[in-house]
């Protein structure tokens, strides 16, 4: 993980002499063409991802046998396999799987007989909420601390922050979660152990018809600030556990980019013209240092979704990651296949969006 992150940092770190030219260098096409190509690339990417998911899932046999094998008589098992079409040629099943995805139909879970799309909608909002909280933590913690580390380069605060950053993204998220629970929920205890809200708050939100699935929105819509506080309290530890992982990456990224930018020729020129150090940092070094963060967010979304599986399980945050584990334990491969395919689509689309934003705001992007 450390190596991957360092590579990510290096990949977006501008060379000291790579100053913005103020004019885009075009290499065979305009922005429209660039965005079109990026958009079209989503489809083969998603196709490859869902194909890998399908092949991996089916490499272990058919989903009915995986879920019910050993519990059903052989004849009933065969009947159900036939009824579900799992005894047909694999290519036929694959094409049907793709066709279903294209129509938004990911199948029906075997263990609790729910449409996978319903599962995705129900629990996806919880994961989205957690991912947003985690990103917020990452921004609020990683960026200011990265700025401090850069300003105090090679001094004690810098060293301490760099070590903290490495610890943050090298610590497995479930371990960080357990430590946070131990300290804030068991030893002190000032924060809840698990869940997204107390039962009373959850019921109150349901009673009042607040059912967007994003608890903070639901809580606010009840107009009861005690419920809002309760929901936020429940969000603190999972958000920290997941967000600190990314915060560590952001911290190192901002630090590296700020230091790099402060050494560039245009900053030196500005300095020699008597521009104040404060203005140099705020106007010339700070904003360019933030641009690579946009690119890294694309990578971090995938990491956040992976981390959400562990964070949600640790804190019983009943989102996609939590449900994915439950369906894995139930050997419900239809559900797992649908959820993993959706996550793959989310990552592909997010990366496209990030590419678009980066192209629009980063003058160093060539297209």
């Amino acid at each position, binding site marked *: 993980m450390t190596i991957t992150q360092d590579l990510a940092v290096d990949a977006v770190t501008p060379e000291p002499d790579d100053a913005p030219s103020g004019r885009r260098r075009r290499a065979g096409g305009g922005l429209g063409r660039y965005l079109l190509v990026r958009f079209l690339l989503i489809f083969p990417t998603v196709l490859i991802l869902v194909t890998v998911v399908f092949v991996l899932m089916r490499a272990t046999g058919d989903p009915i046998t995986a879920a019910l094998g050993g519990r059903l008589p052989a004849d009933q098992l065969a009947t159900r396999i036939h009824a579900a079409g799992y005894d047909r040629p694999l290519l036929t099943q694959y094409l049907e799987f793709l066709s279903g995805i294209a129509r938004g139909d990911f199948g029906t879970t075997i263990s609790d007989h729910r449409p996978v799309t319903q599962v995705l909608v129900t629990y996806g909002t919880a994961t989205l909420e957690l991912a947003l909280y985690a990103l917020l933590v990452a921004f609020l913690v990683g960026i200011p601390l990265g700025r401090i580390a850069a300003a105090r380069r090679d001094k004690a605060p810098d060293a301490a922050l760099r070590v903290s950053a490495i610890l943050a993204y090298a610590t497995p998220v479930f371990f960080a979660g357990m430590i946070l629970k131990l300290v804030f929920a068991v030893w002190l205890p000032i924060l809840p*152990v*698990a869940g997204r809200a107390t039962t009373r*708050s*959850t019921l109150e939100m349901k009673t009042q018809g607040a059912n967007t699935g994003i608890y903070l929105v639901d809580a606010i819509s009840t107009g009861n600030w005690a419920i809002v506080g309760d929901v936020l309290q429940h969000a603190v530890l999972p958000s920290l556990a997941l967000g600190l992982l990314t915060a560590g990456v952001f911290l190192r990224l901002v630090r590296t980019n700020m230091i790099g930018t402060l050494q560039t020729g245009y900053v030196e020129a500005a300095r020699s013209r008597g521009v*104040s150090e404060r203005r140099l940092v705020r106007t010339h070094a700070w904003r360019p240092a933030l641009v690579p963060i946009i690119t890294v967010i694309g990578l971090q979304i995938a990491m956040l979704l992976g981390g959400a599986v562990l964070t949600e399980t640790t804190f019983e945050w009943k989102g996609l990651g939590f449900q994915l584990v439950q369906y894995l334990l139930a050997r419900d491969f239809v559900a797992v296949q649908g959820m993993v395919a959706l996550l793959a689509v989310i990552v592909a689309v997010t990366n496209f969006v990030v590419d678009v934003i980066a192209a629009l705001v980063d003058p160093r992007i060539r297209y």
Partner: protein
Amino acid sequence: MTSATLRRTTAITAGLAATALLLAACGNGNGGSDATGTAGAGGDSLTIGTTDKITTIDPAGSYDNGSFAVMNQVYPFLLNTPYGSPDVEPDIAVSAEFTSPTEYTVKLKPGLKFANGHALTSSDVKFTFDRQLTILANGADGGNGPASLLYNLESTDAPDDTTVVFHLKSENDQVFPQNLSSPAGPIVDEEVFAADALTPDDEIVAAKPFAGPYTITSYTLNELVSYEANPEYQGLYGAPKSKTVTVQYFADSSNLKLSVQQGEVDVAFRSLSATDIDDLRGDDNVKVVDGPGGEIRYIVFNFDTQPFGATTADADASKALAVRQAVADLIDRTAIADQVYKGTYTPLYSYVPAGLTGATESLKGLYGDGKGGPDAGKAKAALADAGVSTPVTLNLQYSNDHYGPSSADEYALIKDQLESSGLFTVNLQTTEWTQYSKDRTTDVYPVYQLGWFPDYSDADNYLTPFFLEENFLGNHYVNQDVNDLILKQATTTDAGERTALIEKIQDTVAADLSTVPYLQGAQVAVVGKDVQGAQDTLDASFKFRYGALSKG
């Protein structure tokens, strides 16, 4: 960076951290308390935490503890078990009796209603049992349904609104009344449920086809289920002591433990780990309530493939028996119960567990030191008398994922107990459950672990499935005397005579040692100091009835 900028950045960061802590502190010092300012549910309400899983609340579609726990609260039964007893009595019925050897007639209470206002008549009862058999036959339950329990039911008639006649395949089936209180027994509303397919949970909850002690007011699968006392309930248990009950579903038992410690849930029932329960016994904020449990653990011998088994190269029935006897002599049940399960399981010396009518500790006097402890000398003598050379190699299998995380410790200890005598060399092997369940019935495992949780609280449920010739163990154990006795007890109407038969069956099987039972699970609930009633429902019916619980 100027010092002013740095100070501002530092201040912002510190401010954010302070905000998070303030947010935490804005609570009342207990993160688990509810947002409306009252801890737990309070007053007429109660919050229960569990790690159970619901498959579906359609009675034809599930046969598991988590789903049955919901059904016990919301559906009516013709017969049910009163608090403190394993034996069934009329629930929404006024009478239930054999009117001929193959006819069991139940008279319903008049004026019964579901919570949705629909009348509950004998037509609903007929629909319920016809539906169970239809769904079993068409496979719509996906193999998860309980209708196999109705193996002796031929058909059901409803001659008038309050009379139900069950036509049975075999005569005087004494187990059939118990089946009416089992997972196959919840009565459903024919105007709500599909006749030949499962009805989705959301449709069930919306239609309120409930006539049990509670109705469901809010339902999120395996997250939160909220119950409210059903004023239409006319059954055995009377009005529930708590008007509303909310059940929160946990995935992790350690979270459940912390939640009950912090008062976020008032009751934790199923399944805290043995270590957690042991720890909670020393916590002054909660009470640990123990009750008899129906779960048993036992070692199965495959009579064909065990050492000296019928299909082995050195087949010898007397030597095979000696091997089984030596194992029974060496197992130290108390050590397993205490060291591995911290007292959440108790030593088991009978085939029918303690608490049920007919339980008798047949193995206690026959094996070991005669007082429940192991005896290596006796084991050595058994093997020597049969001419068995030692050490005997035993390939012992256990499941690493089906009976909880302690199975590895449990079987490591059993291996140690067997090997420390010098009489056995144990090859301990483990397999994940799906494969395990196939292998064990195809003679792959000579000696292996199994557990059993009862379908209904009758001794027959610990005998018929195991020791009739065609049994689910498939371990090739056949004893015609045992066969005859099992069939006889199942149709003996005199209670005393039937109990004597059940005891005799256990004595006979104990001599043959088809299996060696060694642990009986206890039911354990952890409740807040102000919660009463858990002791009343933790009985040998193995049904946790929320109506018995109250708070304050």
